[in-house]
């Protein structure tokens, strides 16, 4: 058996950073941040680890590219290695972080941003980086308290911020899954780009649904959390 350090020998490019804040923004969901030291493009990801014993995991950046802090959004996986440790991190604790990378980039044109759960992270990064014109956000969650950053999305996008709650009825919120909401829409503009982020089943279903409604797959960009 190879030693654990051998697994991470290829991850020498991880930089040590100190936790500046770690907020539980919803039960079991945290926004952990450190001081921003590099330039990134909204939509990019970082590899994140708490030590060299296990390979890092990949998270979308969930902060604006002009902010002092860089953060990621995560939910606790009880049987996982990383997230229970991340959840207990406090100011001053060390994290190992890669340089931002990835090509889930957005354009300035009209776009749909479709997410479930913590898949909202790259879109929040874009919003906080100052991009909000011609954007329509559709966010799905099981419970009312899982619409992370709803105040900021609502304030900035108004009616272009649509929430779909599958867990039960709430005033002003579509009741049902994102796919159900999309299925009920008659027309999707063909000149828009469609960015999808979340778990695979949602991404695959939404992608198929958009294609069936005449959207070219060339205009659909997917990021899957696995």
């Amino acid at each position, binding site marked *: 058996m*190879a030693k654990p350090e051998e697994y991470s020998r*290829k991850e020498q490019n991880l930089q040590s950073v100190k936790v500046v804040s770690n907020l539980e923004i919803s039960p079991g969901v945290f926004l952990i941040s450190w001081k921003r030291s590099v330039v990134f493009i909204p939509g990019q990801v970082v590899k994140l680890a708490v030590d060299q014993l296990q390979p890092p995991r990949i998270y979308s950046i969930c902060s604006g590219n002009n902010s002092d802090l860089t953060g990621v959004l995560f939910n606790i996986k009880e049987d996982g290695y990383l997230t229970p440790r991340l959840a207990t991190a406090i100011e001053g604790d060390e994290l190992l972080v890669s340089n931002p*990378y990835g090509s*889930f980039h957005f354009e300035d044109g009209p776009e749909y941003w479709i997410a479930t759960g913590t898949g909202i992270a790259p879109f929040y990064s874009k919003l906080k980086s100052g991009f909000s014109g011609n954007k329509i956000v559709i966010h799905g969650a099981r419970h009312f308290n899982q619409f992370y950053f709803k105040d900021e999305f609502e304030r900035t996008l108004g009616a272009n911020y649509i929430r779909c709650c599958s867990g039960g009825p709430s005033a002003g919120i579509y009741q049902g899954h994102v796919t159900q909401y999309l299925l009920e829409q008659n027309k999707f503009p063909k000149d828009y780009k469609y960015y999808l982020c979340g778990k695979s089943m949602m991404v*695959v279903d939404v992608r198929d649904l958009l294609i069936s409604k005449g959207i070219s797959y060339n205009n659909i960009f997917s990021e899957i959390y*696995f």
Partner: protein
Amino acid sequence: MIKDQLFGKDLNELQEVCLSIGLPKYAGRQLAEWLYKKEINAIDEMSNLSKKARELLNEKFDLGLSAPSKVQISIDGTKKYLFPTLHNRFIETAMIPEEERKTVCVSTQVGCKMGCLFCMTGKQGFQGQLTAGEIVNQIRSISEFRNISNIVYMGMGEPFDNLEAVLKSLDILTSEWGYAMSPRRITVSSIGIIPAMIRFLNESEAHLAISLHTPFDSERQKLMPVQIAYPIAEVVREIKSWDFGRQRRVSFEYILFKGLNDTPLHVRELSRLLSGIRCRINLIRFHAVPGTPLESPDEETVNNFREQLNAKDITTTVRASRGQDIYAACGLLSTKELISAKL
């Protein structure tokens, strides 16, 4: 309550089983012998264990073998087996007979999380991981078991997203206490989850196949969302840093889509990307998947593409499409209908 399964345990685990029922540790080898060398179908057939020991084993464990619940046979002889899994789900396994060999294509997950645009398995989402026993059972429990020459981990699921079970299954297949197969007869195919790939290269000697499908970042991202997390350039860079020796092989799978990834520009970029790696490319004709906006190229395009790559000194073969009429061909395995039926 589901009992623990003996089939799929490695030697250390079998030794622990023995200790837990009061047998000496060395009896673990006897168990391995019964499980992986002799073709028993019940714990009671372990005739060199005492009756008491067999009773204790029966009390705590199931043997763990599971017969296929359905078999479909293609006009070309390919078979598709349907296996139930421990948690009342289903997986498919393909057996591809050729003149001089029989290859089994095993699944590693129920469904898949990777969401590739061209794959039927991806369309059913992810329903669960297979255990090492469930992976090896797909080989052990088919009628061709004794004549299997090659094993490919190219069925349902992403093997490197279920790495522990995959490594353990490889251990059972290749260890002297297990099936003692040569790892050179086994190929594990992945879309390139880099940390898992590093562990696989460290801990196994089986061949590696990487699903490439296009050398261009933006194109691959639309076909395979994993490209965002693990770009193919990084996957290839990692592979270049490994010494595969003379026996171990790395290959790249390349599904050809009409008008998308079959141009001279793709040949040039593939040549640049793979430069310095002793490898081969397997070209696969796209098998149409319902609801997918991709098409299969014609024969001439496939052959031209192969010739252009060969001219660049990249050994390139075209994989024969097998079992298409029973949805057993590459990218077509799926048990989505069975999930819907259950729900």
